[in-house]
């Protein structure tokens, strides 16, 4: 359908567009300004670049990592650990939440355990994880799962339990079984909560994998950060942190894209 908009509406749309352009210009402007100030401060000796690094030194570090072929190796290691941990945490979290929704008794019995596990700082389990899983990627994936799974479980259980009781009543009056109520109502109505859980868990997964690499690792971005700190190569620390920022943002953007796809599908 093609609309002929009124003049006011065209002006309104143009203004919206200008506003958006302004916001983006400011966003990019702030980044350029900060990087510029940082570079200038380091070049003019206002700060010691040995301690603060600088954008150009970060660029050089990343370039040399790329040159010796280790850049994508470290990125790959961390990314894989994060993604595997993320997927396992989300899948298990959803399954556990489903079981807890299904059985009121199970939920009541397990409640205190979940509360304690949720409150426990997972890093406390670091030594145990090293002993159980060794010093390879398994340990880091396990840490990532540990950090994400409780959040995923609680988030989804909350969504399942918040299902509109009148809609449940309606389905029961049609003679629906518990499985039908689950499939026709509880799961579809929890889709928005699932997306928001994914968004939260992207952050959780990165916390888990980097924390895991701090405790035990021979490769990955977390390893570069720890190593860089130990040998006082702060360029390396800063470089790895910048790469992390980009990766985390990228993963979040993927979830947002997924959200748009699902919402679009639900309406077509």
């Amino acid at each position, binding site marked *: 359908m093609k609309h002929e908009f009124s003049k006011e509406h065209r002006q309104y749309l143009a203004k919206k567009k200008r506003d958006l352009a302004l916001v983006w210009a400011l966003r990019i402007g702030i980044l350029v300004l900060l990087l510029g100030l940082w570079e200038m401060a380091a070049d003019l000796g206002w700060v010691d670049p040995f301690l603060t690094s600088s954008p150009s030194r970060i660029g050089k570090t990343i370039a040399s990592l790329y040159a010796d072929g280790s850049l994508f190796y470290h990125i790959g290691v961390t990314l894989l650990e994060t993604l595997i941990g993320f997927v396992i945490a989300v899948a298990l979290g959803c399954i556990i939440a489903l079981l807890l929704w299904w059985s009121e008794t199970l939920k009541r019995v397990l409640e205190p355990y979940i509360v304690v596990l949720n409150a426990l700082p997972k890093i406390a389990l670091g030594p145990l994880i090293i002993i159980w899983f060794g010093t390879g990627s398994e340990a880091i994936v396990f840490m990532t799962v540990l950090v994400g799974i409780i959040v995923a479980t609680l988030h989804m259980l909350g969504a399942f339990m918040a299902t509109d009781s009148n809609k449940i*009543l*309606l389905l029961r*009056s049609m003679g629906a079984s518990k499985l039908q109520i689950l499939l026709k109502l509880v799961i579809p109505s929890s889709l928005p909560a699932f997306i928001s859980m994914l968004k939260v868990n992207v952050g959780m997964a990165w916390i888990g994998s980097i924390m895991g690499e701090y405790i035990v690792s021979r490769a990955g971005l977390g390893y570069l950060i720890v190593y860089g700190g130990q040998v006082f190569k702060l360029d390396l620390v800063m470089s790895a942190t910048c790469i992390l920022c980009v990766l985390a943002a990228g993963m979040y953007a993927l979830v947002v894209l997924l959200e748009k796809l699902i919402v679009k599908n*639900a309406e077509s």
Partner: protein
Amino acid sequence: MKNEILRFDNVTLTYHTKRGETTAAEKLTFSVREGEFVAIIGPSGCGKTTLLSLAAGLLTPSTGTVTRRGSCGYMLQKDELFPWRTIEKNIYLPLEIGHKNTPERRAEAVELAEKYGLSDFLQSYPPQLSGGMRQRAALIRTLAAEPDILLLDEPFSALDYQTRLNVCDDVSSIIRSEEKTALLITHDISEAISLADRVIVLTKRPARVAFEHELDFGEENRPIKRREMRQFSAWFEILWKELNV
């Protein structure tokens, strides 16, 4: 009595909670005949919804029996359409639940929807419809399962006054022309008078049948017309007094 679709016989229901027990209904006896439109009114908090749950078989009485011949369709205060389904898919819901999701039944359901002015909205999502249209869609969804009795739980109370009168007329004419049996539960006296053939007045909790009236509007069963009739205010007065004993 023959042709009874629903019968409550000395039904008592007691709720148990930690704090104690509440008797929601006591020795409740009444019946609904085939093709009849019965309204039950009672003071608020007299356990009206409990009564419908009993009729739908979702609750079992503590003592006494509830007998229902055939299936029932439940219509609630809000339309409770699933927002992620189109109107068409919403209407198929009872068929899916009852494992009756055949092409014939779906065609019948769509036909019903088209007959009552929903053809343009079949592919729309519930939020795109007005409150009145949504309630109409909810009624078609209920009818799609071809229930032998409709249980209506204050189905208009969530609508604004203007829409309410229209939807009330709408629902009434659809139920009458489909020759369905209906049991309406409401606290709105005028709604009960304008819709029903028979009105049952309940007491305060625990609910018992206090009064029962056969309404005398003759062949007139359009709510808007009934509201203009002489008997209307007379009935209103009677029921008002009986509710406030």
